């Protein structure tokens, strides 16, 4: 089912939930809504589900405008962060509930519930009540209940955020696998960017009720269109520094205090053409500690992450986060030279916060 959201605005009195959101989702696509707390992800989802009525704008499922369609007539499956299992029903009754409401015959209900339960690996739990299950099991029941009615659209509201890291990893894979197999158009809300990056075909990044970007994961990572997206996507986050970019003899240089960084023409010319200071962004993996580095600094902090060390290097008033091999055994206070891979540098207009490179 293709979903087209056009200029959607939802207000609660004076509070803006989402503002002027336009998003076209293809049939069978897996889209993640990514954004910090309170940015309007749940509001958008509940509006799609028909729980909230849009204040303005149009929502279309296929060719049908669904703005005023009741939730029960939308054929949507939804998984809530709190799982929202009915505590007074057994697991069987929970999963069968959507079928019972559709007046599916008892025998068919029984078959479908058992089939879904087996796919979800909860076949043995059908006689229990939700209170007697672990978080992961409840999660599977919630997913089963959403799938059993063979929905046209699946909505997930942070379905994994209450699980431990390990379980989250397996469930992530299972959900993705299931979605691809069934080909159900899905929207997945999360503020965990790893989840968004690994699962989604495209990611909608939201902030303060507005859409910041809507792109494939690697596009967002390699070619962020706004400062917010650049800073929000990627872990550890991108380093930002105010620089002046100048061009002389066909050679561009980004400069800030004592730091002088030559930039290739392709990336250097747009910021050089900008009158005034711009914001330069560079990812931690594009900075290395190397003897032939041209920026000298001092290590301020070393945080071991296991596989590698996260190192905070201070250069004058500036601070850079980078990653280094643990066997290099860097220590705080050590003086190091840094090498910047300027072919990966990003530049942003400090006023509009838009990228000077990609638009």
């Amino acid at each position: 089912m293709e979903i087209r959201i056009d200029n959607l605005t939802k207000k609660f009195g004076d509070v803006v939930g989402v503002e002027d959101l336009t998003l076209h989702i293809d049939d069978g696509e897996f889209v993640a809504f990514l954004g910090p707390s309170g940015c309007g992800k749940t509001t958008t989802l509940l509006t799609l589900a028909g729980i909230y009525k849009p204040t303005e704008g149009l929502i279309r499922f296929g060719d049908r405008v669904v703005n005023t369609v009741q939730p029960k007539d939308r054929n949507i499956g939804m998984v809530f962060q709190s799982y929202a299992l009915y505590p007074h029903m057994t697991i069987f009754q929970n999963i069968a509930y959507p079928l019972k409401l559709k007046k599916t015959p008892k025998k068919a209900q029984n078959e479908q519930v058992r089939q879904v339960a087996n796919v979800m690996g909860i076949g043995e739990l059908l006689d229990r009540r939700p209170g007697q299950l672990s978080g992961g099991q409840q999660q599977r029941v919630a997913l089963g209940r959403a799938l059993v009615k063979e929905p046209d659209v699946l909505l997930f509201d942070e379905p994994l955020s209450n699980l431990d890291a390990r379980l989250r990893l397996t469930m992530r894979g299972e959900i993705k696998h299931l979605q691809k197999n069934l080909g159900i158009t899905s929207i997945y809300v999360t503020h965990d960017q790893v989840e968004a990056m690994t699962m989604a075909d495209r990611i909608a990044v939201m902030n303060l009720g507005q859409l910041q970007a809507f792109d494939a994961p690697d596009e967002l990572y390699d070619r962020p269109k706004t400062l917010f997206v650049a800073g929000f996507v990627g872990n550890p986050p991108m380093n930002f520094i105010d620089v002046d970019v100048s061009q002389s003899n066909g050679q561009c240089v980004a400069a800030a205090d004592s730091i002088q960084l030559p930039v290739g023409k392709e990336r250097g010319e747009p910021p050089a053409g900008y009158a005034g200071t711009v914001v330069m962004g560079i990812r931690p993996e594009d900075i290395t500690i190397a003897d032939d580095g041209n920026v000298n600094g001092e290590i301020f902090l070393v945080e071991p992450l296991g596989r590698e060390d996260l190192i905070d290097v201070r250069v004058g008033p500036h601070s850079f986060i980078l990653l280094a091999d643990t066997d290099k055994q860097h220590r705080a206070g050590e003086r190091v030279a840094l090498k910047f891979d300027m072919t990966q540098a990003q530049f942003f207009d400090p006023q509009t916060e838009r990228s000077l490179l990609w638009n």
Partner: protein
Amino acid sequence: MSQPDTNPKSSAALVQSRRNALRSYLSAYGFMAPAGVLVIIFFLIPVAIVLYLSVTNLASSNFTSDLAKMEFIGLKNYRTLFNDQFARKIFFNTIFYVLVTLSIFNVGLALIVSLLTTHIDRGAGFVFRALWILPRITSPVVYILIWKRMSAEAPFGILNQINEALGQPTFNYLSTNPWVFVVVVNGFIGVSFGMIIFTSAIESIPKDLLNASLVDGSSRMQRIRYVILPLIRWPLLFVVTYQTLSLLTSFVEIQLLTDGGPGLYRTEVWSLTAYHRALSNYFGNAQWGYGSAFAVLLVMIGVVLAVIYMRVFRFDELIAEPRVEAL
């Protein structure tokens, strides 16, 4: 893991912690003591006295200053009661009054009002509920005066003035339809209790659960039936039980409105009889012993009903079984 030898907690420390536990027990009882004393003085002792009175012939006609002369007559009061032709009528009056008021108003209307006011705008819902509380917070005498004014005979009664204005015949409502007024008057008071309990129960159901039901394909009515009502079963049981008992024992409004009339015991209920017999006999003879027998039976009926309710609502199912991990 446990190695008692190296455990720094010595036996002295153990004794100390036991002493602390004991002390906290004692202070807990200390805090409960004032309430406990009140319950004993103002409930348990009076109950015992009433029980005792019900097996004596104490009445104002044979009352002397020498209480020792009071005669123990065993179950004679109870035998009289069971052979009293009016006791039968009053018994069925009571059942009728409690059942009708409870089901239509104290539970039925309370449930409807709380469901309606939780499905509309919050502010409006609050206003409607506040209106329903008015009958309860109005003093019974004032409240009954209002109803008497409304139901009075022409040309005084408000209802009859409306009848006259519309060219309809007028009625003496309290003598033609006393039960309607007894039930409505008590019912309007009774709605607010259940309404408050049900509303707070409905509002404490997690929003996600209510949304999930709609997404799963329920209409709002189906959501009430399959999700909301089962989830407020415990408050429902509580209100049914509690309101049955309070209706059984309430009589002030009936006393003020009809005083059990018109005629012989037309709207007389059990608790009002206990009062009439023991404290306000028409013939000037207060039959304390006989009245107490009525009171004792009322308490017994109440206890039996409470137990039956708990069985019918299957209390044990409200308690979840212990959690057992599958993996």
